[in-house]
């Protein structure tokens, strides 16, 4: 009798143990949708197009972004309140959360995946953390001038060689910090222009571009030849026109390079600017519905999808890069805040904050495939970013 009881108990324990183990799966087709109002994220499967988990308690996610560990298992979410949260996409759990600053704007991950770096408004600067433990390993203040003022940092992007490029909104500079030895960060400073608001790095990690709010033009740094300094591109793009009020700063992160061309938002104008990436000369302008916020190239570069600033933020337009014309105008929902392509671009996920939806579009037909209910969604980030420079 005792034997039989023991056998039964063993069987029950075995069943419990097996039941508690989630089925084996990969993480290359997973992603996160930020729920900006409730401080939570939904974990999504982009192959089956459904939600597989939710993680709460991440603080103020009103301007949140995420980067991914190189094994694509973990996401690091940067919150507005300086929170840095490490999320296990496979287990659907919060591994660790720290408060690393008072007011933050995003982050990046190093080439080797060992350092997670946050960019902060308050106190202005960047901080690096061990990707495994989230222990702080470096603090690089964005100090400028003779009075020790600190600038808000924008446009942080990873460069090859454990380097990070970023721009100083208040100081008008681009800086490149080398964190090969986190205990001794080395920072180079390049004057860039008035009020840089965001930045991007080209897919090869060579060119860093900062958009400027305070002047018409963008600042370009060739990080292979930094001694040449910053060069202005598209200078005076708004000449002769009165700039419109800007209700939402454009975002440059997530390069929009298609073939030999870069597609960039014009600030204060209803235009997307097209530049040749060999000469960095303007080769065209595309009139669009309103002021662009995100200008994103489909991974194959054949199309560029654009969303717009308040109050025209219910629209999305698609530009064909062969003809450089708008070929589609869509209304995915109210207050479209972000878009993310699947790794090879057959679909795009579009978040509509005020409709509480994320709509998956087929990019070949420009038609909706599926709509997911998400609480006040903003950023959509897929784990394939782990393998891309500048994402």
């Amino acid at each position, binding site marked *: 009798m005792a034997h039989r009881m023991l056998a039964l108990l063993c069987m029950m324990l075995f069943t419990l143990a097996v039941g508690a183990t989630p089925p084996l799966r990969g993480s290359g087709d997973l992603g996160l949708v930020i729920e900006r*109002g409730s401080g939570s994220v939904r974990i999504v499967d982009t192959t089956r197009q459904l939600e597989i988990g939710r993680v709460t308690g991440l603080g*103020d996610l009103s301007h949140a972004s995420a980067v991914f560990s190189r094994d694509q298992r973990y996401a690091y979410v940067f919150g*507005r309140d300086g929170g840095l949260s490490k999320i296990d996409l496979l287990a659907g759990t919060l591994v660790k959360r720290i408060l690393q600053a008072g*007011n933050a704007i995003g982050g990046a991950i190093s080439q080797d995946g060992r350092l997670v770096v946050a960019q902060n*408004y308050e106190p202005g600067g960047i901080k690096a953390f061990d990707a495994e433990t989230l222990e702080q390993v470096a603090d690089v203040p964005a100090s400028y001038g003779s009075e020790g003022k600190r600038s*808000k940092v924008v446009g942080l992007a990873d460069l090859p060689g454990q380097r990070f490029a970023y721009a100083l909104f208040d100081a008008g500079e681009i800086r490149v910090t080398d964190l090969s030895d986190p205990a001794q960060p080395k920072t180079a400073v390049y004057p860039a222009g008035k009020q840089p608001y965001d930045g991007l790095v080209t897919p090869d990690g060579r060119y860093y571009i900062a958009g400027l709010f305070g002047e018409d033009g963008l600042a370009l740094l060739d990080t292979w030849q930094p001694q040449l300094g910053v060069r202005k591109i598209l200078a005076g793009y708004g000449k002769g026109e009165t700039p419109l009020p800007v209700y*939402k700063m454009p975002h440059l992160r997530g390069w929009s390079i298609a073939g030999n061309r870069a597609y960039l938002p014009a600030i204060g104008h209803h235009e997307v600017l097209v530049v040749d990436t060999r000469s960095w000369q303007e080769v065209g302008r595309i009139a669009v519905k309103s002021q662009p916020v995100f200008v994103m190239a489909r991974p194959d570069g054949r199309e560029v999808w654009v969303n717009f600033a308040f109050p025209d933020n219910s629209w999305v337009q698609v530009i064909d890069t062969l003809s450089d014309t708008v070929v589609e105008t869509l209304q995915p929902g109210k207050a479209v805040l972000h878009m993310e392509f699947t790794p090879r671009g057959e679909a795009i996920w579009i978040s509509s904050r005020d409709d509480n939806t994320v709509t998956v579009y087929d990019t070949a037909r420009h038609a909706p495939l599926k709509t997911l209910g998400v609480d006040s969604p903003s950023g959509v980030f897929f784990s394939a970013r782990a393998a891309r420079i500048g994402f």
Partner: protein
Amino acid sequence: MYPNKVIRPCVAGLAIFGIAIADARADRPAELIRLVRQDCGSCHGLTLQGGLGPALTPAALRDRPPEALFVAILHGRTGTPMPPFRGILDETDARWIVAKLLAGFPQEAH
């Protein structure tokens, strides 16, 4: 009675119109709360603790004259990214927002 047939629907129409106006005004605070939290929030933060733009909490605004805030909302601030909101907000809206900011801005109803 031909005139009556015309007048009645007119009166009914006006009454509906009147209610519609009253409703639009009644909904305005909720719209403004959403606009300030979500759209002003893209620079000032959803919690209004600041971002690219300064914090808009009662403590942060303590020494700012209400009139200056009113002008900043409607006309923007030169040399900064603060855009003018006239055309989107009228003076009544701006005055309401300033008063609420100084008192502690309400949360959105969920």
